[in-house]
């Protein structure tokens, strides 16, 4: 089989996911509206918080507002979960039909997520333009932006595996709601989406910075706002790739076990 034939199904999955997302037009407009509102509220919130203290945790106000705004835009992409379908497929038993197809299922979920991501990424451009009417966001140097993009890509992949592992649990439990809530909370709070990890005090901050969740939001954002100097970029991105490799290996084993479970029990 040629390379083109091998990737043909996955390219098509991504394209279909894109088309599917585009059919929900109403949702697109409400999302844009709520984005502008959230950006505005974040600005007000941080302005109020900074009135007491000029630079808590060593981050000046403009950098903080940039951080919060970029984190919000990132979350539009990172909250997409192509692996959510696993849960529904396992519960409804349609996973059996999917296993009868000549495809690698985890790759199917990944491509589906990519298709959705591309669509929502295109929406960020108008969202950002609108948001900029209300807040000022710092623009980093080209080098920092490139490092940010790389780091964001690595974080995206870590996020995929995290979602994947969380949803694959459905093969054993059928229901994943509790885990879902916990992981979502952990990745938002401990990952640095809600506020920079520098706000965590003392030893807690050290722990949080070394958890895999930091690879999702915190690392790219710290590169973006200049909290990490260029000399620290390679190590930070290497740490992300380390988590990525670990999650990739664990996911492979867990998926094999999940498949074995279907194959032994019959779905």
């Amino acid at each position, binding site marked *: *089989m040629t390379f083109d*034939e091998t990737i*043909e*199904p996955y*390219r*098509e*999955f991504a394209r*279909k996911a894109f*088309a*599917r997302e585009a*059919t929900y037009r109403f949702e697109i407009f409400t999302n844009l509206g709520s984005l502008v509102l959230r950006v505005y509220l974040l600005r007000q919130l941080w302005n109020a918080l900074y009135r007491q203290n000029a630079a808590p945790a060593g981050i000046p106000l403009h950098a903080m507002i940039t951080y919060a705004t970029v984190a919000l835009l990132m979350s539009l992409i990172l909250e997409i979960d192509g692996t959510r379908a696993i849960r529904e497929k396992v519960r*409804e*038993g*349609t996973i*059996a*039909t999917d*296993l*009868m*197809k*000549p*495809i*690698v299922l985890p790759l199917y979920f990944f491509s589906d997520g990519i298709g959705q991501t591309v669509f929502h990424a295109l929406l960020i451009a108008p969202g950002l333009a609108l948001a900029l009417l209300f807040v000022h966001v710092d623009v980093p140097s080209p080098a920092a932006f490139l490092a940010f993009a790389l780091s964001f890509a690595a974080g995206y992949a870590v996020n995929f595996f995290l979602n994947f592992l969380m949803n694959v649990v459905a093969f054993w439990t059928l229901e994943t709601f509790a885990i879902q809530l916990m992981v979502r909370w952990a990745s938002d709070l401990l990952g640095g989406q809600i506020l920079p990890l520098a706000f965590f005090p003392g030893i807690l901050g050290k722990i949080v910075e070394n958890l895999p969740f930091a690879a999702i939001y915190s690392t790219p954002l710290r590169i973006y706002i200049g909290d990490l100097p260029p000399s620290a970029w390679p190590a930070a991105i290497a740490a992300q790739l380390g988590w990525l490799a670990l999650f990739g290996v664990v996911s492979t084993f867990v998926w094999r076990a999940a498949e074995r479970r*279907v*194959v*032994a*029990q*019959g*779905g």
Partner: protein
Amino acid sequence: MPIIETRDLRKVFRSVKRSPGALGALRTLFTREHVDRVAVEGVTMSLDAGELVGYIGPNGAGKSTTIKMMTGILTPTSGEIRVAGIVPHEDRRRNARNIGVVFGQRSQLYWDLPLVESFELLRAIYNVPRERYRANLAEFTEILEMGDFMSTPVRQLSLGQRMRGDFAAAMMHDPRIVYLDEPTIGLDVLAKEAIRTFVARINAERGTTFILTTHDLADVERLCRRIVLIDTGRIIYDGTVEAIKEQYGTHRTLVVELCDDEPGFAIEGAEIESRVGTVARLRFDRKEVKADQLIRRVTERYCVNDVSIEEPELESIIRQIYVEGYTDPNVTVAPQALLPS
């Protein structure tokens, strides 16, 4: 050479033993007691390319389990299985390229997308060359009359339309073997007929092998020459539809319409099954009494407007076998003996 071969195929499902009640549920968490349930017990069968076989049995007989092992999503506990030369559970993805599946109860179409986009996706999944895809699509659209709803989202299709879509979807990559699991369930007569015609035509023109599991024995009578009967995991009959009718269904029904209401109507050699007004239904065994003999007896004694004889339907024969078990030993045919060599 057979395209599907199984030998002593066996599948045992093991599950954790559950104790009843709240305390029992707690105990279930900690004990490792198991219950084994045998779903398939020594199934040996052989299918030639191009056959269209009805795989019949009551609910829970092991039909779906067998099919799942043939598709490779279930590993047999023991025994051998080969589908087009491949051991399905060892090489599931390669096996998947040779097979197509239609489940009456669940669709493989993409719910949110127009029907035609599901077909395009399947084209990509199986790497079907574009010319081949276009030819198949045109042919299936014509036979299954899908032109009117090709760009309708699947969730808005009627069951009949959706099933036609599912059939086309299963055939888009020219599979050599197609498994049909209750494909006509819940369909109206027109949709059923459209689908039966489609299957018969694909089988005749392309030599595709079909395994049909269904409770609608009219499907089987219309399509299959051979049936395999399974009960409690074992094959109890493997042979032609005619043979099972010939040897098992020896009962006939003589329907007599009398000129007058005859209160004491009775004929020796047949028992009255029902009487509605002047119409009597008489059940007889054609081994004991010949039909013409019986008709003569009736017409000699009574004034008769009309007579007709009803052949037993496959359904009534199978129902009888489900209830009474398969008893006639001289009908049991070794599975291999029936295959054309």
